[in-house]
């Protein structure tokens, strides 16, 4: 099918992808720097074309619970927010994971802690991949590095969310959300009919026909023995994701002596730093993480056997670097560099950090 070329903000690309991917419902609450997601949906009025429901909720707490309701009924539902709003959603996210519901949540990260700032940040890594809410659970976490990936990962997100019956987070940042780039959009995928929904999501609570038992969606089991079994099932699912669903991109790594490990905006900056480094004769490559959970442990372990050092580049005080160190198991030096609180590092700063912390270090 023919693809159409557009110029859009990352946030608008999320909204456009929602409409074109057969999304049934979006529930959100305004917060900078991601409000264009809902604004674009309200301008497009998809309820008149595809029948998609779009609703501005009274809070992020409410919007994530609307998502929980729609997901429990078998619908393709999503929300988007930015850091402080995502903190409010943690209750809903752990319930979604506990009740094994598919849903898509976009976090266009801004600097924290607290009300922080409205500028880009990557300081919500721990919250996204280590839980955030209570209990042993994982979300599938995708890190887009371009407007095109903001669009594409909505489609991928639905696929993973329904395959594993698990919430998927697109962990973006204020830069990717706000930047305008060209992107290719594909044709509309129709929303599921009720017949398709009942076939694809037979577990959904959307009205009990006479010929089946009533469906119950809950995360509660007061019998601890059963709750432990449920947890075993969840853990098996997460291990399967680690086995089958890791995504990454290795750039200029074939001859690399040093590796940048980065995702999202930091990966874009690191690509420029590679160019600057190679001009100076430093053989450096980039391992760009696309999934943050599952984390590419095996790939990092392999690189750690070959290279002289790795620099984790992230707009935080050092979060992802912990997972890089765990995977590298001290086979090579692993250091962290990143500006934070809403400041974006420059390629020169990144290269300088490699030289200071790893090469000279």
């Amino acid at each position, binding site marked *: 099918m023919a693809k159409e070329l557009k110029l859009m903000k990352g946030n608008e690309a999320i909204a456009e992808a929602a409409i074109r991917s057969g999304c049934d419902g979006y529930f959100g609450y305004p917060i900078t720097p991601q409000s264009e997601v809902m604004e674009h949906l309200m301008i497009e009025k998809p309820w008149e074309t595809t029948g998609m429901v779009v*609703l501005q909720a009274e809070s992020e*707490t*409410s919007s994530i*619970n609307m998502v929980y309701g729609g997901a429990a009924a078998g619908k393709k539902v999503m929300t988007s927010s930015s850091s402080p709003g995502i903190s409010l959603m943690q209750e809903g996210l752990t319930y979604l994971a506990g009740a094994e519901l598919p849903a898509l949540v976009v976090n266009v990260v801004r600097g924290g802690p607290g009300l922080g700032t409205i500028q880009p940040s990557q300081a919500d890594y721990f919250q996204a991949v280590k839980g955030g809410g209570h209990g042993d659970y994982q979300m599938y976490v995708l890190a887009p590095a371009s407007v095109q990936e903001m669009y594409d990962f909505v489609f991928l997100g639905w696929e993973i969310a329904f395959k594993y019956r698990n919430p998927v987070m697109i962990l973006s940042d204020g830069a990717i959300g706000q930047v305008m780039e060209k992107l290719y959009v594909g044709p509309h995928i129709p929303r599921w009919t009720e017949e398709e929904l009942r076939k694809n999501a037979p577990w959904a*609570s959307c009205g009990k026909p006479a010929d089946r038992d009533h469906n119950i969606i809950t995360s509660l089991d007061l019998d601890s023995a059963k709750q432990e079994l449920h947890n075993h099932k969840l853990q098996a699912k997460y291990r399967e994701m680690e086995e089958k669903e890791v995504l990454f991109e290795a750039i200029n790594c074939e001859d690399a002596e040093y590796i940048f490990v980065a995702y999202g905006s930091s990966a874009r900056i690191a690509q420029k730093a590679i160019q600057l480094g190679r001009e100076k004769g430093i053989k450096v490559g980039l391992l760009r993480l696309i999934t943050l959970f599952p984390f590419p442990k095996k790939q990092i372990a392999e690189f750690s056997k070959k290279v002289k050092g790795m620099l984790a580049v992230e707009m935080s005080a050092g979060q992802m670097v912990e997972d890089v160190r765990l995977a590298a198991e001290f086979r090579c030096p692993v250091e962290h560099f990143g500006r934070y609180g809403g400041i974006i590092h420059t390629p020169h700063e990144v290269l300088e950090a490699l030289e200071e912390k790893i090469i000279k270090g």
Partner: protein
Amino acid sequence: MFNPDIIKPENLVYEKTNVLTDAIMHYCPGCGHGTTHRIVAEVIEEMGIQDKAICIAPVGCSVLAYNYFNVDAIGAAHGRAPAIATAVQRMFPDRHTFTYQGDGDLAAIGTAETIHACNRGENIVIIFINNGIYGMTGGQMAPTTLLGMKTATSPYGRTVELNGYPLQITELLAELPGTYYITRQSVHTAAAVRKTKKAIRQAFENQKNKKGTSLVEVVSNCNSGWKMTPVEANKWMVENMFVKYPIGDIKVDGEKVKK
């Protein structure tokens, strides 16, 4: 004496509705939950909407409501049932999504979700059990606990200085233009049960006709939480709860009832 010979179709005067499962209810004897469950289920059966009914269960004593209602069900986080019902009903406009919530769930932790769902006029039915106490967690003070009432967290009686006033959330919700039908009933006598069943039927009929939000409050005793026998608890409820929470319609067909 049990006489199996009299179990014949021609002697049948009453049977359990199929909209309740055979699961044994965990509710305390004398509590209003069991009766309210039964009449909600009977209304669903009589209207022929079992295949369209979706129950949103709360956190509280009725957290396991989904085990008793033989309809598709969703267990909510504490207080969030109206937000969940909002999404379900908007995506399936021909269904009968109803929440079943207690006073702590609806009037404390879920106040925002309740007010905004009602204010948007979501086409949902809210069944609200008000017994003035947190039953499941062991009898703590609720937003609807009466002044002077002793609970586990107001052991010397609720005072205005320490705890503020009991919240008449039902009257508050009746002020919102999105609500279409607001009534307060009880299930402590046979006559009251019949009135409450009629009110619940009205609420589901309103939903069928897409009229907006209907809420049926059921003032109930919590005999174990109140530390009374069921009979004493009902007497205390009539003499005290009904003073602060008077029985009757508050808003009918979108118009407030003049007192």
